[in-house]
């Protein structure tokens, strides 16, 4: 019986993906997912073998042993659940039993992970063809940490008005004071920090603590992004949002798997002035839950939530979609006209909450399914208004470059080993980047490895 080995491997995985510079991390993730894919495939074969005896394969063809196999499975489930979408339902069922039979599970997180995988699988199984890989893999980009800019940038200048400038306070300068009080000017900068940095600054000294605590304006926008998002729970979110003392306007929770419908409802109840809500990738929220919260909230809150981002993860029915739109006060024409084009980008899986559209999902013009719909950034497609509309679709209907998001109507493309598509321009950039990495030496061996793999396994199309 083993139940510590797996959690260990998971935490080390986490650390790996959290550390290092962003670019490297991007590469690393892609590389990791490759290896998971391979491992997951072999597991799939093995599981089928155990149960059906249909395929005559050695029980452990790669000498992985049960332990390492399970490690890789848990890793996949926890962090990269979408890999599993390549399984069919039966296999997944087998895998679940396989785990429950053989291992003692003390950690509830595993189970929630399973539920989530299950939903995701059901959804993706409806689609057919190679493109679904594209979707599955590109959703990895969501694990990148988007820059945590505090977009409002409101300076709470009301708090500090009488700072004396210049020679008179040379003693406690910003950086040189020998363990003195913070420079008054620093208080201004607090308005430019996100929630996470505010929490850190709060612990620096008393004057910072008082400034952070006494100014609800600082907390008007709260964004929780990875890696913090998997740690936040309902209670801690309620506590955090209470710092805004009711004036919270924009709440963005990216992939907060600890937040439940009930937690969200509590937050909404105590923050009646919320207007923007972003919950992409929050796996424990459901459309019905969000709808229910919105119904209750918009009946009492003023002016009510006008802007909702749910990401592409939910199975929204048309009826729910219509109700969401009417709750948000959006009408179809406005939705089409005012919004800036949205491009599919590596690392920007979710649409930001900066633009004015009321809800991020829409019906794909091609397949009519509800989800994130992207525009095409290619000049040739944007030039004519009619083709620009032609090129608008979800990720499944039109393959797009993994990096720049353009379609491949007018340009050649490359498919990598990991089944991502790149347009030739972006691919060249990648190769150049690889050469640079090689020059930089051993520290970037992982990135180099990926790019080399990419180079060897490409097939040119078009």
């Amino acid at each position, binding site marked *: 019986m083993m139940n510590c080995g797996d959690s260990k491997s998971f935490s080390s995985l986490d650390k790996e993906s959290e550390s290092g510079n962003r670019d490297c991390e991007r590469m690393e993730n892609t590389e990791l997912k490759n290896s998971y894919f391979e491992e997951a495939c072999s597991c799939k074969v093995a599981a089928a073998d155990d149960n059906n005896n249909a395929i005559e394969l050695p029980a452990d063809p790669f000498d992985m042993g049960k332990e390492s196999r399970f490690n890789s499975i848990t890793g996949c489930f926890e962090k990269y659940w979408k890999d599993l979408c390549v399984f069919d339902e039966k296999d997944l069922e087998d895998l679940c039993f396989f785990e429950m039979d053989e291992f003692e599970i003390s950690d509830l997180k595993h189970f929630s992970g399973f539920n989530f995988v299950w939903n995701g699988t059901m959804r993706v199984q409806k689609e057919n063809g190679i493109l679904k890989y594209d979707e599955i893999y590109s959703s990895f980009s969501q694990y990148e940490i988007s820059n945590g800019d505090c977009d409002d940038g409101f300076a709470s200048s009301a708090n500090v008005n009488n700072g004396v400038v210049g020679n008179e306070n040379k003693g406690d300068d910003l*950086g040189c004071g020998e363990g003195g009080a*913070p420079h008054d000017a620093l208080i201004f900068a607090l308005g430019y920090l996100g929630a996470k940095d505010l929490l850190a600054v709060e612990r620096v000294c008393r004057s910072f603590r008082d400034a952070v605590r006494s100014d609800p304006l600082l907390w008007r926008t709260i964004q929780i992004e990875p890696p913090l998002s998997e740690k936040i729970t309902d209670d801690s979110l309620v506590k955090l949002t209470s710092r805004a003392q009711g004036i919270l306007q924009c709440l963005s929770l990216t992939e907060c798997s600890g937040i439940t419908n009930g937690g969200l409802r509590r937050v909404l109840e105590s923050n009646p002035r919320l207007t923007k809500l972003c919950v992409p990738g929050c796996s424990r929220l459901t459309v019905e839950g969000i709808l229910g919260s919105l119904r209750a909230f918009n009946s009492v809150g003023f002016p009510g939530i006008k802007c909702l981002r749910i990401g592409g993860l939910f199975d929204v029915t048309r009826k729910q979609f219509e109700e969401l739109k009417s709750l948000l006060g959006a009408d179809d024409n406005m939705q089409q006209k005012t919004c800036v084009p949205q491009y599919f980008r590596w690392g920007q899986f979710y649409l930001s909450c900066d633009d004015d559209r009321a809800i991020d999902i829409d019906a794909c013009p091609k397949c009519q399914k509800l989800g994130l719909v992207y525009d095409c950034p290619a000049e040739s497609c944007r030039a004519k208004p009619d083709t620009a509309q032609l090129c608008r679709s979800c990720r499944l209907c039109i393959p797009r470059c993994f990096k720049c998001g353009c379609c491949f109507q007018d340009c050649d493309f490359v498919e990598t080993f990991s089944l991502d598509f790149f347009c030739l321009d972006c691919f060249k950039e990648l190769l150049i980047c690889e050469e640079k990495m090689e020059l930089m030496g051993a520290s970037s061996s992982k990135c180099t490895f990926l790019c080399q793999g990419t180079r060897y396994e490409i097939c040119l199309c078009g």
Partner: protein
Amino acid sequence: MASSSSSSSCSSSSEKKITLKSSDGEALNVEKNVALEFEPAKGFLEDNSEEADDEAIVVPLPNVSAAVLSELIPYVKQRLELSAKPVQKKLIKAFDDQFTRHLSDDKLGELMLAANYLGVNYLLDVLCDVTADRIKNKSVEYVREFLGIQNDFTPEEEAELRAQCPWAFEGVDQD
């Protein structure tokens, strides 16, 4: 510093000069349009608008030193020239970046206080942004060291703060 050179070079856009008096008693000549960017100077000039000769007006700025003013004036001047033209935001951003890149942390703080006092909001924005960037995603200890701030919490207070949001302090940069 570059105080005298910057203020004496008369640009064609503005012929009138105003004298600003810094906290340390130094007098600086600036173009009127630059002086009008500073809220206290603007107010002062409006109050004294009956004075026929602008040259004779000396605007006291008791909260800003000459050293800081002499950094501010060229920036404001160039920024005014930039924003008068229909240039892209990118260019302005590049200009701001260039201005802030080499600022020491002390200077940053002084300029920030001055920009606040003088009501130059676009500069305050830029400076705050830079400062925030410098302490973003850093550990508490790092911020303290970086800013030279003494930890004035009692151990009990510190424990209380740490217990408050333990989830927020894993995985921050240590450097």
